[in-house]
């Protein structure tokens, strides 16, 4: 079997379900792959480990991938698990929409300052002074009834509700934030030398997503083994969210199948970055992705 190391972007959670499901159900094995899933974390720089050969593929973010291409890194996105980035903002219930946050304190992690924060700034006229540090700990949000915080739908709102707080979640994608979510990024070298391995990996993973949404139990067992703090309740909440918001199978995936990406969407992301001054206009943005691996996949939910 061909060995492949995949590095996720965070501690194991339901948002990684497709990969763990493919591992748990033997989908990878079936296509002749020996896959190892390594967990990322808040300070783990996956892209660096990818180009250093520590991983064959990683879970990526479009904006980081475009920046990497700008810096001449030989990396490329081959598939997108989610049709939009799951990033959003969590607010106290008095907030109706993103516009209402103007002038309010928003807790933003350092890594987000060059991703969706400039987008919010440009779109809603937010100021840098509004941004306060966020360390993935909700205490500052909970004590400040006027604050908002960056959030993943299945994480922060879940924690806040566990503490009995009524909160709102506003998905950025709903307001037009263009990047895909939870992509698969690999190196040009991998594509040149073992395109077939990657092809099998992408396919098995997308099968994994399909299977996961149908019955998450096998993956959840593996997730709990890697991340002992993960609970069934939490994962059930997340899977439910993914299902109802059609993160995996909505948008272009409805027709093109799970994992689908389009050049038009990448262009949107590129345009936003250039307009925000975050990316050199000369960047060859088309090298940041290839649709070769998902074009004809056609893994769809029944």
């Amino acid at each position, binding site marked *: 079997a061909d060995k492949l190391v995949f590095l996720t972007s965070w*501690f*194991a959670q339901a948002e990684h379900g497709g990969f763990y499901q493919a591992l748990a159900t033997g989908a990878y094995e079936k296509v002749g792959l020996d896959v190892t899933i390594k*967990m*990322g*974390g*808040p*300070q*783990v*720089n996956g892209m*660096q*480990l990818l180009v*250093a*050969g*520590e991983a064959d593929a990683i879970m990526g973010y479009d904006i980081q991938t475009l920046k990497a291409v700008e810096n001449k890194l030989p990396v490329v996105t081959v598939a997108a698990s989610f049709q939009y980035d799951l990033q959003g903002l969590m607010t106290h219930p008095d907030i109706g929409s993103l516009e209402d946050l103007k002038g309010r304190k928003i807790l933003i992690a350092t890594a987000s300052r060059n991703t969706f924060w400039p987008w919010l700034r440009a779109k809603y006229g937010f100021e840098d002074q509004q941004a306060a540090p966020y*360390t*993935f*700990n*909700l*205490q500052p949000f*909970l*004590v400040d009834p006027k604050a908002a915080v960056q959030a993943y739908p299945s*994480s922060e709102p879940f*924690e*806040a509700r*566990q*503490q009995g707080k009524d909160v709102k979640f506003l998905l950025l994608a709903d307001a037009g934030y263009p990047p895909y979510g939870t992509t698969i990024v690999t190196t040009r070298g991998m594509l040149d030398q073992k395109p077939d391995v990657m092809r099998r990996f992408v396919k098995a993973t997308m099968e994994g997503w399909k299977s996961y949404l149908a019955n998450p139990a096998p993956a959840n067992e593996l997730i709990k*083994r*890697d*991340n*002992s*703090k993960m609970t069934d309740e939490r994962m059930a909440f997340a899977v439910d969210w993914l299902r109802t918001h059609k993160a995996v199978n909505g948008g272009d995936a409805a027709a093109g199948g799970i994992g689908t990406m389009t050049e038009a969407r990448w262009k949107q992301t590129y345009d936003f970055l250039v307009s925000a001054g975050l990316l050199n206009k000369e960047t060859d943005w088309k090298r940041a992705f290839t649709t070769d691996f998902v074009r004809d996949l056609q893994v769809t939910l029944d």
Partner: protein
Amino acid sequence: MRPLIRNEWFVRVAAPLLVGALVLAVWQLACQTYEVPAYLFPTPTDIAAKLASDLPGLLGALWSTLKVTFMAFAIAVIAGTALAFLFTQSRIIEFSLLPYAVILQVTPIAAVAPLIIILVKDTTAALTICAAVIAIFPIISNTTIGLKSVDPSLANYFRMNKAGRLQTLVRLRIPSALPFFLAGLRISSGLALIGAVVAEFVAGTGGRSAGLAYEILQSSFQLDIPRMFAALFLITATGVILFLAMAGLSNLLLGHWHESALKVEQ
């Protein structure tokens, strides 16, 4: 009170414990009076309850962190003293290399962790290296100063007797350096511990071998703040024990001769 202050057992054991108990009591009372929610700042009893209920898991994590701590501390001590020996071999070596040793201390481990992970495949080894890098500088710096703090007359005696480098090191420089070296150990032992935690934050692993940093991060993400404090308690308790061990070692090695540890004859 007078006689109590003179009582060794009271001074060394009871008084510190009393202070600890007092702080806990005030903390408990303050939290209860102002009804501080547990997700913000838990009471000692919240923490104790969590500690009791989650003990097996927390102890497992503590053990993982301790393994890294001890290995890193050992490496820091051995490599640090070796470097200090090297630096005191000649002034030119000291001036040429010692300033660069600072680089070990002031390089943010987060920035170089990926490089270490790339170079060292084994995660535990990578964590150990990160923690050792964090812990080594106080040993290097203090030991270097210590090795130079030799009574010039005794140094003359050794020189006159044509003592070899190794003899001078073992019989003169090392004993003279002990007070500074042991002061370095006190600082370094704590840094090895916090280094192990920080390394785990940075190079992060969950799974079976996850240490206390993972417990803290997860508890913090999940707003299980009592559990986070329970993990913090284990870390700080370990730190205090390490410190007391180093202080005890100082007493053992210096108690019979060095002013800092000597009980003055009255």
